[in-house]
């Protein structure tokens, strides 16, 4: 109301009117740009989401309809794929979810802690051999995993860890994944070094600097790392396959592989249903943690 009065008033003045018109035009242009952007995003979203729709649709179809029929819409909704799928394997999915949760939660914690430790050392501390070890760390990422599978299996067998979760969890507490170290190094290095120095003069030990300065300023990076490590561990399949023997201890992705038999009876509908369900925890976590990335403290206060 009030603005209207003001607008009315200024329209009398030709200069003000011109200014007003320009503003209006700008607003219209901004609106158009936003609309275009939305339109683009919506189309892109459809392309991105189509496979999931297909998956969900397939999970609701009767078994003999999944492949013969290309339409998305099922002729009848087989909710039983979900209810029966949950208990279709010798062990209930309740157990698989519990197992996956244990492995994933511990692994994510381990990853974040140990990798940020190593990253802090590489990014911030000066010590002899830093470049050398950094190179080694990069190298561990370059060797195809399949060729260390067997020696590593032998090692864990010697340790008596096979058929336990230790081979899945312990390495994560020992910063085994160079990806996260390198990721954090890159983000840590973006933080002005003078902050460390100020903290040093403020009486901080290296640990205190890491904890009170570097970590709080790296929330976007830590959030990203948390999301990735959760997703990757949750979906990890090769290590559980190799190290877990007892079906009671299987994780969700491993259980999903029990549905499909290339040579015989498969249960695709149930497999798709359980695949859809297996995405749920990850999605929830994703939505919750991506806030960290967004809310991350803009570093504009520093320079």
């Amino acid at each position, binding site marked *: 109301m009030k603005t209207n009065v003001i607008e009315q008033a200024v329209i009398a003045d030709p200069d003000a009117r011109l200014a007003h018109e320009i503003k209006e035009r700008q607003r219209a242009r901004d609106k158009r740009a*936003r609309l275009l*952007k939305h339109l*683009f995003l919506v189309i*892109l*979203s459809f392309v*991105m989401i189509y*496979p*999931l729709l*297909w*998956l969900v649709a*397939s999970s609701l179809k009767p078994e003999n309809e999944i492949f013969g029929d290309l339409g998305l819409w099922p002729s009848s909704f087989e909710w039983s794929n979900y209810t029966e799928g949950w208990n279709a394997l010798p062990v209930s999915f309740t157990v698989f979810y519990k197992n996956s949760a244990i492995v994933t939660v511990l692994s994510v914690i381990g990853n974040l*802690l*140990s990798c940020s*430790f*190593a990253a802090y*050392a590489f990014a911030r*501390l000066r*010590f*002899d051999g830093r470049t050398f*070890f950094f190179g080694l*760390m990069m190298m561990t*990422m*370059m*060797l*195809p995993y*399949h*060729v*260390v599978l*067997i*020696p590593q299996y032998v090692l864990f067998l010697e340790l008596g860890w096979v058929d336990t979760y230790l081979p899945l969890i312990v*390495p994560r507490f*020992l910063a*085994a994944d160079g*990806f996260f170290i*390198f*990721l954090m190094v*890159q983000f840590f*290095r*973006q933080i002005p*070094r*003078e902050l460390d120095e100020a903290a040093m003069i403020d009486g901080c030990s*290296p640990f205190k600097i*890491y904890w009170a300065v570097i970590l709080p300023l790296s929330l*976007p*990076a830590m959030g*990203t790392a948390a*999301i990735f490590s959760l*997703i990757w561990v949750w979906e990890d399949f090769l290590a559980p396959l190799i190290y877990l023997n007892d079906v009671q201890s299987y994780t969700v992705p491993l259980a999903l592989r029990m549905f*499909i038999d290339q040579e015989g009876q498969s249960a695709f509908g149930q497999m798709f249903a359980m695949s859809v369900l297996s*995405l749920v925890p990850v*999605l929830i976590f994703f*939505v919750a943690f*991506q806030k960290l*990335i*967004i809310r*991350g403290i*803009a*570093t*504009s206060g*520093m320079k």
Partner: protein
Amino acid sequence: MRKFFRRNTAGYVFLTPWLVGFFFLALGPILVSLYLSFTRYDMVSAPVWDGLGNYRYMFEYDRRFWKALEVTFTFVAFSVPLRLAAALGVAMLLDKGLRTIGVYRAIFYLPSLLGASIAIALLWREMFGLNGVINQVLAMVGITGKGWITDPDTSIYTIVVLAMWQFGSPMLIFLAGLRGIPRDLYEAAEIDGTSRFRQFRRITLPMLAPVIFFNLVLQTIEAFKTFTSAFIISNGTGAPADSLLFYTVYLFNEAFKFFRMGYASALAWVLLLIIAAFTALAFATSKYWVHYENERD
């Protein structure tokens, strides 16, 4: 001596978890695989020393090794730039404005969540098949398609498209990086009347350089090691006509299908050298385009 300790203690204390992991869990297997690359090893019986036999065979006789290299290099050359460009473009779209961004972010990440599962393999074969969605769309504009995924000349590009489509993880990293760029830089540029494109070149790119560098290095490493998507889409065979014979697919088959772990190890070490060369190159050139805030050394 005291000085030595003073200088090194903190670094090594923080590095301890990694060092323990590296020396106790990683180094042994890595060295064993290096040793195995000089042996014939079928995994059931003991390895037999073969000197440079594996390497010689690889370079002198193995046509499929060269084919696998060709396939992999093609993939890397196309997928890395395209995927990074897609990830950066979308990340920038999602970085500013729009309130509904959280939803989009989740949606755009979905394909990466689906990973390379059996469902994706089935879907991809369907979409790029003779009667797939792609050809239906092409038919609408009057183009007669073909079996993109079954034609050895084009099948690799369907995997490139898959890699592009799963741009979620570099996108997220870019987003995190964009969050770190102070807004006032853009505001200042806005006032100076700098065009959007120049803002991108003068502010976004340099400020994002460390993150771009990370994504470039990691995506290149990952691209060279691409396994699951190609394996699952070609049913593990590299078909059609070896056009999807990615290096690691070949390596995996040599190891676990044909019981030649020694040869597979040699393949792995050759790949490691190739990747290391590219990574070293990236690091060497990074001095010229990646600058870290306030770094003295």
